């Protein structure tokens, strides 16, 4: 296996650089590059630029301005200022197609977020911000194809679980060098709440880069500072500047194992959980290029579940599986099977009623061929053992002693809320809805799975979709917990899980990296890329595996190599 990451062409980079230099004599304006003297950039736009939630005619643009030395993130200090934004068809901003002014100040931590409207579908754009005559780095973004169009191809990076203390974000660096992405789908744990050294790299907890603030995030200032720190990472900045993000949160944007009214990592002496969550959501709204509450306006709502369409080819429904969920069952250490009968209690939920209704409505409309679900935690049944429902249901109805779908090894995912899963899977089966692919993060490991209605009867049961799980960018996984070299002790556990759960077709418990989902009308293919080392700033990457779901099959199958690039050279 070799490093097969498509890189930006030399020509593309040179074009941007030379064009900028010609225009100003000092500017180099490739996406993410400096668009003004270095000291101006560092003084005013220290946290980069970003775009997100692309729609056919609009996209969210984001930056943070630092108008003076006092206006540090989380400080609540600094003046109210105006920032100009521009969107152009060209990197030299000769064809500016949209512009405006945004006010910001300490009440929103000097972040700038807006919906740039009036754009053309399926089009590349460049954008920048101007403050006191100085330009931010130039970002590039791309709008979604028109609703009625039928794109031949879409390609998304799929990432999750990026813990700054556990390593460098080499995955982001490699993705930023690609020239073929429509968007980055971030499935949560974009940042971590822990204080220094609490949850760092490996068994020995080595802090590769210390968190700021050094303590666990609790106050609004803490959350803002932590977001700001992550946004200073050069690899993350480069990726944000190059590709729009489509994000959802998991638990660590708030705190570990969050549920509707609490969290494992929230103690009574830390104050009200709901107040803490409001602060976390506020900082997220300020610092992420996302439409919360359905708009880009900060503070007008916290609804994060939403869908984004890409012509007739794909619709991405991003879920929020933390805000509305019932409390987890009494947890047992992973991977010990958890026989708590409450997992199948129909009164417990992971989605909440409103989100489930919304999701079923989106899926029922069946507006696109591929129904992609941005799913923060795994939905595939991973239980010991999976038994046919015809056996377990009557037994459980009679005794109430076991969960209906078997004992899961991780009750923090859909396995701990199986009534919701049954409702969703039945909905897909009953309506004849095909080509649903769940894209999942959270679990720091890479999986490819079929989704059987009745896991115990697999493969002699219908399947309603597939699930592709990306591994962590840096966060620890099984080899770290077991203090074993990669691909040694984990292999036996992987084999055990796949033997008991035959619908799990691929599992890598040890690697870190990113995934790329290639979407065509014929199939989707998830390619799994693995980085060489988390603590190496220059880590290399290699293609590790690929799994495809052919249209209409609801089954994954291995791919012989990474999806080939079909982009035009100009992309």
């Amino acid at each position, binding site marked *: 296996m070799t490093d097969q990451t498509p890189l930006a062409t030399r020509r593309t980079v040179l074009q941007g650089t030379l064009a900028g230099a010609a225009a100003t004599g000092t500017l180099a304006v490739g996406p993410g590059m400096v668009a003004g003297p270095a000291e101006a950039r560092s003084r005013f736009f220290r946290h980069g630029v970003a775009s997100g939630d692309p729609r056919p005619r609009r996209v969210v643009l984001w930056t943070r301005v630092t108008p003076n030395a006092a206006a540090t993130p989380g400080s609540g200090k600094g003046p109210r200022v105006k920032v100009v934004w521009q969107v152009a068809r060209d990197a030299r901003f000769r064809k500016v197609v949209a512009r405006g002014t945004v006010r910001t100040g300490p009440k929103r931590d000097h972040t700038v977020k807006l919906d740039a409207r009036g754009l053309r579908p399926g089009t590349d754009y460049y954008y920048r911000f101007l403050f006191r005559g100085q330009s931010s780095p130039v970002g590039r973004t791309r709008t979604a194809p028109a609703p009625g169009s*039928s794109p*031949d191809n879409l390609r998304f990076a799929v990432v999750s679980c990026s813990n700054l203390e556990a390593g460098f974000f080499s995955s982001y660096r490699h993705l930023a060098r690609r020239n073929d992405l429509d968007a980055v789908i971030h499935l949560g744990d974009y940042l971590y709440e822990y204080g220094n050294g609490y949850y760092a790299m490996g068994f020995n907890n080595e802090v590769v880069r210390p968190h700021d603030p050094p303590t666990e995030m609790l106050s609004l200032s803490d959350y803002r500072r932590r977001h700001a720190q992550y946004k200073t990472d050069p690899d993350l900045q480069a990726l944000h500047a190059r590709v729009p993000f489509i994000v959802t949160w998991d638990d660590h944007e708030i705190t570990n194992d969050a549920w509707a009214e609490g969290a494992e990592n929230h103690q009574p002496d830390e104050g009200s959980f709901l107040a803490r969550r409001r602060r976390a959501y506020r900082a997220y709204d300020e610092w992420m290029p996302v439409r919360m509450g359905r708009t880009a306006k900060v503070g007008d709502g916290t609804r994060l579940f939403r869908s984004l369409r890409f012509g007739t080819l794909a619709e991405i429904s991003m879920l929020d599986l933390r805000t509305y969920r019932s409390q987890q069952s009494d947890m047992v250490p992973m991977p010990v099977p958890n026989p708590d009968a409450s997992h199948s209690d129909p009164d417990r939920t992971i989605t909440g009623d409103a989100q489930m209704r919304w999701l079923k409505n989106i899926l029922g409309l069946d507006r*696109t061929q591929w129904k992609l679900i941005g799913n923060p935690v795994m939905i595939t049944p991973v239980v010991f053992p999976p038994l046919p429902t015809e056996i377990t249901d009557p037994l459980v109805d009679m005794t109430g002693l076991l969960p209906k779908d078997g004992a899961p090894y991780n009750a923090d995912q859909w396995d701990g809320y199986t009534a919701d899963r049954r409702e969703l899977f039945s909905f897909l*089966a009953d309506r004849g809805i*095909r080509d649903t692919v769940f894209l999942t993060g959270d679990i720091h490991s890479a999986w490819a799975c079929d989704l059987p209605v009745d896991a115990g009867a697999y*493969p002699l049961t219908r399947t309603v979709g597939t699930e592709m799980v990306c591994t962590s960018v840096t966060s620890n996984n099984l080899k770290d917990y077991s203090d074993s070299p990669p691909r040694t002790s984990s292999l036996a556990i992987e084999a055990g899980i796949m033997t008991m759960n035959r619908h799990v077709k691929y599992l890598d418990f040890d690697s870190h990296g990113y995934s790329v989902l290639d979407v065509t*009308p014929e199939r989707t293919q998830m390619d799994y890329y693995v980085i060489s080392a988390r603590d190496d700033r220059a880590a290399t990457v290699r293609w590790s595996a690929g799994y495809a779901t052919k*249209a*209409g*099959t609801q089954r994954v199958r291995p791919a012989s190599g990474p999806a080939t690039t079909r982009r035009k050279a100009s992309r």
Partner: protein
Amino acid sequence: MSHEHCSRGSGDAAAPFARPLGRRQLLQLGAAGTAGIVLSTAIDTPALAAKGKKRAYVLVLDGMIPSEIDSGLMPNLKALRDGGTHFPRARALPILETLPNHVMMMTGVRPNRNGVPANVIYDRKEKVHRDLDRPEDLRYPTLIERMNRRGFSTGTVLSKEYLYGIFGDRATHRWEPAPIIPVSGHAPDVFTGDALRSMITEHDPNLVFVSFGDCDRMGHVDLTGPVSLKVLRQTALVQLDQQVGMFIDQLKSTGRWENSLVLGIADHSMDWSRPDRVISLTPPLSADPFLAGKFEVSQNGGADLLYWTGPRGQRDEALKRMRRIARNVPGVLAVRRPGVLRLGARAGDLVVFCKAGWRFSDPEVHSNPIPGNHGHPATRPIPFFISGGHPVVRRRTRSVRATTVDVAPTVGAFFGLGTPRGGYDGTSRL
């Protein structure tokens, strides 16, 4: 409440097949080929011979599930599909039954305009449940008739008796399905394939509308379906693929391929239910004194059509009760008004769909013993592809939704036909 039944359908009670000859004088051309194929030709049709070089073949793979083409059992069909434009998002339309979807294919309009919403309806005038298998049941000009009027020749090779019945003598050349398997009411694919090739050899029509029935019929009776083994079904797939292979060989070996468009499609897919997953709405509806004796249930596999036959003034209350009762029966997925589904008045007052893995059985719980059924939303996905050697055919896959109602616009556009009066409900997928 009457359940007299005067013809047959998918898993329906059998009755003698009576085909009205219509006004045309028929010329039977006698045996063609080794199977004793009998083809009929209307001698008063304007065009007995084909007009021009273009040929179109609409291959209906009755009841096929799209993924079955990728099962490894159907290399010829897979090659045919992959060589053309494939629409993996294709869907059949309600009611997911044979007659309505074949009729939608050939009319390009929905049942509220063509008059054929289901296989079986309750005929309020005749006061019987019957198949919509009479030529006059189809109330909209078909592509076949419109092509005939433009001087093109047409042919039908329809393996099921009720299909032969409803399309009647519309085509220039027709095959009367034979031999017919008792109860199933269809001719096996090996004979259908022979008839198709014979029709091409003997008459070479511009358009042939052919429907292979084994996949559907073997699926209906496949007792291994509920556990996904589908033993009978898979043997049918293999045989069907052989017929497709011989058909393609014929086109290529006779030089027709370069002028041909081959549209592959199904009228619905298939779902299987266990013996204990049966819904019979008649008993709970009859248990309501307000409804008892004043309703009819036309069973269409995975869909029941409910008709209020009581006083008009009590209809609103009756429908409210029927809806409430039906919704509470285990296995029922949804209750819809026919208007919402564009089914027209013949579909009755309410349409009830079952969940995946269930079936209806009315009036008695044992009335429908077959495990394989369709009619409900789980059986919407269908194969749909446009292949052939004609230059208009492009090799690609498209994510747009194609449906059975798109067939007539597509084939019509291929032959340069305009839109019918009132326009199509479908879209050309060329």
